[in-house]
């Protein structure tokens, strides 16, 4: 590559010398050298792409990585949502208020729960101890939530059964007609009703004793959608324990007398609850119950 320089005032270039040089200096590399060098150049590029090219190629290959990451995150999110109950998402779940092995009619009174007040944390059963437990139980929420209330119901029922020296096996509560359960909010209930209504998500009136009343208040204050949350379960558990402890010494005769008294005092709902609880606690309730209670049914309103 001869570079001509015309009229260079510095004396570094002379037109005659430049022309003569260009005329005489025409050598070119042999073709075999050209071929060898060009082949080497292509071979180097083809065999080992350089850093920039390698980066580009790698970037091309990595373009799908963000999409894969997004898809993975989406899949995990869907999985978590499926494991999350609807209560945590803020949606009411009236159809999930009863989680027991009871027959279907017992699944009851969603309409009353809609009007039920605040949360379990706001209630104060047993001086707030249950609330504390409920609050502590809230974070661990997810998977094992659904079977828990049923287990609590069984345990509660077991304690009642043992206390009353009745049949050891817990039996599901007999079905309560929905319309009766709907009216149960206005009626007073015994201490034994608390756990039952808590498990069933029903609203109960205050119980006679102070402790049971607090538990009943706690349970009744709980809105239906929270029935199966950890807090709700803890509150139920606390109420159930209180009731079982109070209920245990109640003998069969006293229990029958209580049912009769409630019935006679014009509290058929409470009587029905106690009767249902009695039947649940005693497998041989047909033998234990007197005839007037055996066939008694609360009148429909």
């Amino acid at each position: 590559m001869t570079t001509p320089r015309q009229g260079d005032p510095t004396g570094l270039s002379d037109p005659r010398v430049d022309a003569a040089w260009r005329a005489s200096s025409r050598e070119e590399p042999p073709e075999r050298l050209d071929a060898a060098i060009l082949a080497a150049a292509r071979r180097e590029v083809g065999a080992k792409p350089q850093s920039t090219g390698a980066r580009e190629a790698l970037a091309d290959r990595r373009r799908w990585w963000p999409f894969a990451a997004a898809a993975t995150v989406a899949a995990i999110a869907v999985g978590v949502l499926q494991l999350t109950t609807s209560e945590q998402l803020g949606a009411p779940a009236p159809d999930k208020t009863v989680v027991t092995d009871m027959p279907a009619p017992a699944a009851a009174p969603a309409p009353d729960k809609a009007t039920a007040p605040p949360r379990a944390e706001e209630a104060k059963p047993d001086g707030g101890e249950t609330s504390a437990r409920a609050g502590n139980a809230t974070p661990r929420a997810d998977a094992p939530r659904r079977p828990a209330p049923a287990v609590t119901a069984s345990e509660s029922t077991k304690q009642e059964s043992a206390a009353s020296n009745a049949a050891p096996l817990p039996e599901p509560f007999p079905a309560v007609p929905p319309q009766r359960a709907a009216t149960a909010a206005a009626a007073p209930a015994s201490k034994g009703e608390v756990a039952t209504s808590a498990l069933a998500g029903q609203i109960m009136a205050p119980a006679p004793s102070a402790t049971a009343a607090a538990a009943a208040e706690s349970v009744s204050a709980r809105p239906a959608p929270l029935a199966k949350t950890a807090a709700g379960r803890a509150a139920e558990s606390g109420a159930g324990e209180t009731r079982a402890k109070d209920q245990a010494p109640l003998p069969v005769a006293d229990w029958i007398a209580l049912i009769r008294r409630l019935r006679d005092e014009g509290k058929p709902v409470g009587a029905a609850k106690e009767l249902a609880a009695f039947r649940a606690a005693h497998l041989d309730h047909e033998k234990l119950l007197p005839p007037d209670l055996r066939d008694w049914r609360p009148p429909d309103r």
Partner: protein
Amino acid sequence: MNGGIDCAGHGPLAYLRSMPAPAIAAETRDEDLMLAYAAGNAAAFDALYARHKGGVYRYVLRHCGHAGIADELFQDVWMNVIRARASYIPSARFTTWLYRVAHNRFIDHWRATGHVELVTAGPDDDADDPLDAIPAAHNDEPEARANARELSGRLQAAFASLPTAQREAFLLHQEGGLELAEIAALTGAGVETVKSRIRYAVTKLRTELGDLR
């Protein structure tokens, strides 16, 4: 120097890499071609090689004066360019970088053969230059000498009689098209020294051509 292309960007490199050699030969800068080749465009190297192969070959040939050695050195120079493509940074003109590679290869050759001292060792020219002992190109290039015209023969003879430092500066200026500062940076001499060497070489060649019209 790197105004035409972005090393990190994909667009220009991808464009250059996909371009055939004839399309990029005309309008693309040497630096961009080298970057494109470093990015994997073999056609860019073809264009680059086509632009500079003659100058580099004549630079080597005129310097060593032997066609066989010139072929070997010429091939080594371009292989070094190929191998150094990853580390190439267009901080200066590609031509400067290319002739630096050639210059260094020549120094290695002279060191290996042990014939001469470094051509850039002395600040100035003329006497006591060991390269003067090296025969001129036309003495070892019978085919070229046979086909050369009288002008060419006399010119080459006059060039061969130049001290090595003057030949170096003249070749870099004439074949490589390097500026004084570039030659000075490449050879390690001062700009004024380079200017003096080139001027001296041109004067001597003009004197040899004086009776030719």
